[in-house]
């Protein structure tokens, strides 16, 4: 039996999933990105710096990540270096978006599925519904007194206050132009530095009281599944413990299993916390969370090299050479009718292989023991992906506090230079959802080619020429699916926190 699920909501953008069912389970899945806008065509021939205006508008939820990747690609093409303050400000702005996205995913996109009628009768259902029932919906109000889950109305103001950091460092969110190839156009004053400190403190207090029911440091220190479940049993409240109770009951560690290779391009410039050199340490080119490709099978981390990335268009509605192309040589030419194609999404591969990216990959590659232990048995899962996101909030906010403290008002935030007439550059950034790469080619002072490979392009990739399914397509295989509204399928898809407007751009 073939089933089509769409419009698949509570993801960013439009998504269609087709499922071949056999014996109540998904036998095979096809993931389709139904929207094409053509940014890579739009950018051709433009002034290279105009990319800073266009690419954030690829995506309203990963806007700063896109901006940061464009700035990095331009920087590479120009051969510029960023002053320490610029790296700190860029880290803070990117972390602000990434953490806010993790929170939005948990509270608005993912958790409302556990408040659906399909789960009525589970021991945790009434609590999940009171907390997480979706913010809006056509169904008549059901719960007496509080027809919608209470959590969204508490999370949104906390998030909005946290996003004032983006207002301060980026002018507005989404779609800032503050991030420049040489750093940030928005220098921070001494008074603003204090304001950043106050905003971070307020956000930490909310997270610790409402989400974690514990200090961020205590959660970040958990070193494996056993420690996680012991922590979950502490009766100290917090939305994360409610999720863990649900996850244990529904065995979410067995759901959405896929992968074996987890990729990260490296997150956040290192050397930004001031360290021993009193806030003047230049970023050394390293990362807070190291890049690499971690194999769950042998536990080894292999180096990530952007030259190992190719994109295959065999199952996309795109014209071009049939052999996989490195992004510098990539083409994007729509072909709405093409035999065998089922999506606008290209199939990116690392050394020809399917990889998964996102917070789980980032934390596993960086060696966090909890993330690695959650991938026990060699595959990611719904549980592992969701926990890794929250783990990342707990790990990154304290880093933000250090970056803010290390800002030195009065010292430069931006360096300056010129774009050569002929140049190329790769900009690599870890967005909330994973590895984001921009490949820029400049000829005659204009953009000759601009190729974007986004996190969900990796995760929601279609089959490649060899017929190998993408990460989500693999993760869906075996998922229980009694009918169209099957909650398990919804959990698996949303566990990746897909961003469809980035996927195809």
């Amino acid at each position, binding site marked *: 039996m073939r089933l089509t699920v769409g419009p698949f909501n*509570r993801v960013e953008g439009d998504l269609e999933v087709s499922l071949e069912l056999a014996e109540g389970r998904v036998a095979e899945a096809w993931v389709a990105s139904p929207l094409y806008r053509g940014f890579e065509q739009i950018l051709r021939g433009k002034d290279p710096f105009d990319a800073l205006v266009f690419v954030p508008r690829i995506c309203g939820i990963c806007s700063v990540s896109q901006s940061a990747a464009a700035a990095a690609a331009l920087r590479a093409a120009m051969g510029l270096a960023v002053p320490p303050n610029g790296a700190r400000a860029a880290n803070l702005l990117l972390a602000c978006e990434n953490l806010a996205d993790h929170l939005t995913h948990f509270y608005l996109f993912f958790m409302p599925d556990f408040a659906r009628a399909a789960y009525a009768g589970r021991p945790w259902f009434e609590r999940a519904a009171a907390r997480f029932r979706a913010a809006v919906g056509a169904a008549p109000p059901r719960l007496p007194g509080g027809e919608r889950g209470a959590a969204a109305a508490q999370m949104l103001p906390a998030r909005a206050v946290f996003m004032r950091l983006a207002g*301060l460092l980026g002018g507005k969110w*989404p779609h800032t132009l503050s991030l420049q190839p040489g750093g940030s156009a928005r220098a921070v004053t001494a008074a603003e530095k204090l304001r950043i400190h106050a905003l971070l403190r307020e956000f930490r207090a909310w997270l610790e009281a409402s989400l974690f029911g514990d200090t961020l440091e205590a959660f970040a220190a958990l070193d494996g599944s056993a420690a996680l479940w012991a922590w979950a049993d502490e009766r100290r409240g917090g939305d994360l413990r409610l999720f863990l109770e649900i996850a244990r009951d529904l065995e979410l560690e067995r759901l959405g299993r896929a992968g074996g290779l987890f990729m990260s391009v490296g997150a956040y410039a290192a050397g930004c916390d001031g360290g021993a050199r009193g806030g003047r340490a230049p970023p050394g080119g390293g990362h807070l969370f190291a890049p690499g490709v971690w194999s769950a099978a042998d536990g080894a981390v292999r180096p990530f090299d952007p030259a190992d990335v190719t994109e295959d268009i065999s199952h996309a509605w795109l014209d071009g050479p049939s052999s996989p192309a490195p992004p510098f040589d990539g083409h994007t030419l729509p072909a709405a009718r093409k035999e065998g194609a089922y999506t606008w999404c290209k199939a990116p591969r690392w050394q020809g292989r399917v990889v998964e990216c996102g917070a789980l990959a980032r934390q596993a590659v960086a060696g966090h023991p909890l993330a690695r232990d959650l991938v026990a048995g060699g595959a990611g899962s719904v549980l592992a992906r969701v926990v890794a996101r929250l783990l990342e909030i707990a790990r990154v906010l304290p880093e933000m506090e250090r970056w803010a403290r290390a800002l030195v008002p009065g010292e430069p935030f931006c360096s300056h230079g010129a774009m050569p007439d002929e140049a190329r550059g790769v900009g690599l950034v870890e967005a909330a959802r994973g590895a984001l790469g921009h490949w820029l080619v400049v000829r005659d002072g204009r953009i000759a080619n601009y190729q974007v490979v986004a996190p969900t392009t990796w995760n929601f990739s279609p089959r490649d020429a060899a017929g190998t399914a993408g990460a989500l397509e693999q993760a869906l295989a075996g998922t229980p699916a009694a009918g169209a509204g099957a909650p398990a399928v919804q959990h698996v898809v949303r566990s990746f926190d897909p961003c469809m407007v980035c996927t195809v751009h």
Partner: protein
Amino acid sequence: MNLLWLQSGGCGGCTLSLLCSDARDLFGLLRDAGIDVLWHPSLSEESGAEALEVLEACVAGDMPLDILCVEGAMLRGPHGTGRFHVLSGTGRPMTAWVGDLAARARHTVAVGSCAAFGGVTSAGINPTDACGLQYEGAEAGGLLGEEYRDGAGLLVINVAGCPTHPGCVVEMLLSLALGSLQADDLDALGRPRFYADQLVHHGCARNEFYEYKASAGKPSDLGCLMEHLGCKGTQAHADCNLRPWNGGGSCTRGGYACISCTEPGFEEPGHPFARTPKVAGIPIGLPTDMPKAWFVALAALSKSATPRRVRDNAVADHAVVTPAIRKTGLK
């Protein structure tokens, strides 16, 4: 009032911006104003077939549709088929859905410059033949056509901006819920006048630099961004510097030029965004309502009268000269 929100050829950023609203309880505010959000792709409970039931009931007229909000451009290509966005699960182009729903809607609202005019999605070679609901750039027409009127007899309401300010969307929805929005509350481009009758220049924190034409020369400089760095704040219709973003920001406060994102065609200015086009050293785009000769004369005069503090700070990324301390009283 029933509200249905659809997304097509855009980035979803207007929805994400809306979630930054400074309302203590955004959805409670809308609900208490009598607005029931039937479906929103990012926020609703319903998915798949349940969501389609809602859409179909609205098209059939079985469910009243009071407010149709559309975010993102209308993708007519390739070759008029609309296949660049087929609404998932339906096999039908989004343009067809929007056409059917707009015919039923009491009010039709374009949220953001993409839905209003085509916006960034229609830039460059406009690969998807993108347009707005009732405009293609500055030309009336678009997907629904110049003759379209909503159930209340109004043109499409264009809450233009890239993205929209959350406050503008909330206030527009409240004005519809309270029944207070009239045709003359919209400007000549269909934008609500409560924000479009302002200029981005109003309240700009760089005003003293503007007064003396003390200009920034490079990103991160504090000076006025108009002369060299492409700023259109003196011409752009929006209240960004009176209605702060994310607690206190705006483009010019964020260190970069206003690109006039509420204006049809802003995505193709005909010059690099961050460089001011000039003739004989004078910016082509002069402040709105300002005669050129006066501008040139005043600019020359004010440049020659620029205090050292303003001149030096304009090209630094932090104040290098502080204002003199003076007694302002009479004795």
